[in-house]
């Protein structure tokens, strides 16, 4: 059986009926108790001995036991109250106590049937009492169910709140999946979380204590195999279950065999744009910790959130890619004015990001730096083509004109609030470390970090490309030149990082 709805066991505290039974016993002068169908006394008005229904007739316990056994079998079969004469003048009465149409116990009594005094009156009275007890048990059972349901809802609500608080921080698919995996592990207290979305090349196993797992989580062929088997269950035609719960090997032989050890597993299909693309699953290697319906609902909620976060992350990524392409096109069209600088901004951007990659910048800082790098020469849109492409030496006036481009770029982009962290990087990319640069003559570390990084990338790309006034420099000459201007034109720290990157990646 693949799908198992966990049924809550009916756990009733019969002790609270002790007072009631005691009062009945006093009032009617009978022995009365509540027994299980197996004949165990659960609560009694007088004494706690098992098997015997009547304390007054202890002379023939074997017979009493046999008679009550028969009575209980009859009640179990018919589901109805029964009377049975067990000894001369003695009648055994048993009335089933029910919860959810199931017999949970029997209210029993032994009474004398004297001549002309049939026990029917007493039986009716007991029947009424049994009804009251049953309805109280039923009420309690329902209240417990509702409380359990409410408790599950609290859990779910808590998860959704937590997710909402963190949604803003989730930008990439990896972040979304990691967040949900951690949540699943914490909330469901599981040993291992597995997320598989083959279409996105995701087949991840998360575990706080990999050493406790019965297999190596770096064993990729094995984890992919497990992922495939589980996913197959969700996408095979006809089946398409909403969840899979495996609490012991009998539930699903195929899945259990994958692990070699007893496992409990709960898996929920993961839907993107309406169709199943993967699954989210939690696994316990301690077979005592099985999964229940409440866990299933929680994990379903987590899977839905993951789908939402991934869709969000994709939308964000798409928008960002689109914007970047538009900006690149814009930059290309400016560079098109001068065939020598074609592709310059994109190359500078790539070099800048390579340097930034080794500098421990936050994702937000990298983002701002990337925009600054790709847009650093945008101000050249305001420089005339004749000056930009002029072969040979520029006049002082022309040179001043060109030197305006960082400030122009800064002014052009100033209204774009999303670029505010990138603006200074653009404005100061022609400052010199020794303070002799432009437009502000900033010196040393007063120059914004983004500008200092872009300056190194910009200088290197300018040297390694052909210009209208000179040919491109060789690799060795460029390095020598960069080292020569280190500390004068360029930030020595950034230069050191850059040289190291170049040497590490130097083609053999």
């Amino acid at each position, binding site marked *: 059986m693949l799908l198992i709805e966990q049924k809550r066991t009916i756990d009733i505290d019969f002790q609270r009926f002790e007072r009631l039974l005691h009062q009945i016993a006093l009032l009617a002068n009978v022995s009365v108790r509540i027994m299980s169908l197996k004949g165990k006394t659960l609560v009694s008005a007088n004494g706690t001995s098992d098997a015997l229904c009547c304390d007054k007739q202890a002379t023939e316990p074997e017979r009493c036991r046999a008679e009550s056994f028969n009575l209980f079998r009859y009640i179990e079969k018919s589901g109805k109250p029964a009377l049975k004469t067990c000894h001369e003048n003695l009648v055994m009465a048993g009335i089933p106590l029910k919860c959810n149409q199931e017999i949970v116990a029997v209210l029993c009594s032994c009474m004398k049937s004297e001549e002309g005094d049939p026990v029917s009156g007493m039986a009716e009275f007991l029947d009424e009492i049994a009804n009251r007890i049953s309805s109280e048990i039923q009420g309690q059972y329902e*209240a*417990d169910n509702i*409380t*359990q349901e*409410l*408790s599950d809802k*609290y*859990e779910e*609500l*808590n*998860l959704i*709140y937590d997710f909402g608080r963190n949604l803003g921080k989730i930008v990439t698919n990896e972040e979304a999946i990691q967040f949900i995996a951690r949540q699943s592990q914490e*909330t469901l*207290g599981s040993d291992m979380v597995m997320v598989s979305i083959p279409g996105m090349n995701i087949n991840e196993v998360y575990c706080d204590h990999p050493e406790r797992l019965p297999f190596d989580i770096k064993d990729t062929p094995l984890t992919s195999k497990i992922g495939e088997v589980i996913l197959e269950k969700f996408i095979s035609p006809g089946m398409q279950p909403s969840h899979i719960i495996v609490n012991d090997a009998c539930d699903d032989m195929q899945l259990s065999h994958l692990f070699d050890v007893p496992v409990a597993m709960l898996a929920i299909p993961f839907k993107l744009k309406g169709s199943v693309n993967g699954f989210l699953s939690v696994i316990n290697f301690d077979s005592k910790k099985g999964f229940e319906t409440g866990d299933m609902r929680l994990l379903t909620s987590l899977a839905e959130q993951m789908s939402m976060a991934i869709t969000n992350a994709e939308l964000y990524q798409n928008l960002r890619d689109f914007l970047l392409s538009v900006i690149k096109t814009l930059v290309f069209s400016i560079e098109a004015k001068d065939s020598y600088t074609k592709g310059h901004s994109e190359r500078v951007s790539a070099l800048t990001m390579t340097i930034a990659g080794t500098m421990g910048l936050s994702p937000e800082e990298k983002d701002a730096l990337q925009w600054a790098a790709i847009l650093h020469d945008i101000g050249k849109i305001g420089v005339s083509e004749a000056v930009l492409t002029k072969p040979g030496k520029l006049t002082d006036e022309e040179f001043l004109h060109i030197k305006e481009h960082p400030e122009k770029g800064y002014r052009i982009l100033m209204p774009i609030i999303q670029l505010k962290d990138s603006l200074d990087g653009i404005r100061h990319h022609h400052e010199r470390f020794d303070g002799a640069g432009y437009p502000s003559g900033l010196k040393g570390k007063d120059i914004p970090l983004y500008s200092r990084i872009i300056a190194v990338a910009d200088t290197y790309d300018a040297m390694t490309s052909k210009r209208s006034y000179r040919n491109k420099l060789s690799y060795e000459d460029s390095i020598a030149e960069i080292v020569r201007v280190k500390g004068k034109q360029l930030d020595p720290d950034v230069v050191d990082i850059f040289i190291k990157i170049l040497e590490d990646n130097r083609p053999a």
Partner: protein
Amino acid sequence: MNGSDTGNAQKVLIVDDEPYVLRVLKMKLENSGYEVITAVNGKDGLKKFIGSRPSVVITDVRMPLMDGQEMYQMMQEHKDENKPFLVIMMTSTIDRALHLWAEKMENICFVEKPVSPRNVLNLVSQYISKLRNSNAVACPDALVFEEKV
């Protein structure tokens, strides 16, 4: 790890004027073997605290008659020095005033509403096991005795 490990269930007092919160937490903790006492406001809570000496008090902040903060202070005045207890406060927002107040208090922690019953249970069992371990250091014989039982 649960409350009935030693056979002698640990007591937890839950104070809240919302009956469904009481019900949910009571069920969750009882299922793990703790003995649960409930109260519907701070005044009631204080009375039951003195009467039962629980190891953990879980309380709402805003309640009629006596709020959670006042109750906490009264509990400190009436506590039994040999019976340490943890207070878990449930609140919808931890504002600055409450934060400053809590900084000066000891053995108190906050959970945000809507509370996760699992989370509350984890806090309770973590505290109880910490309490047991510290007892074990102070009185190693008691631990051996517990194991035999």
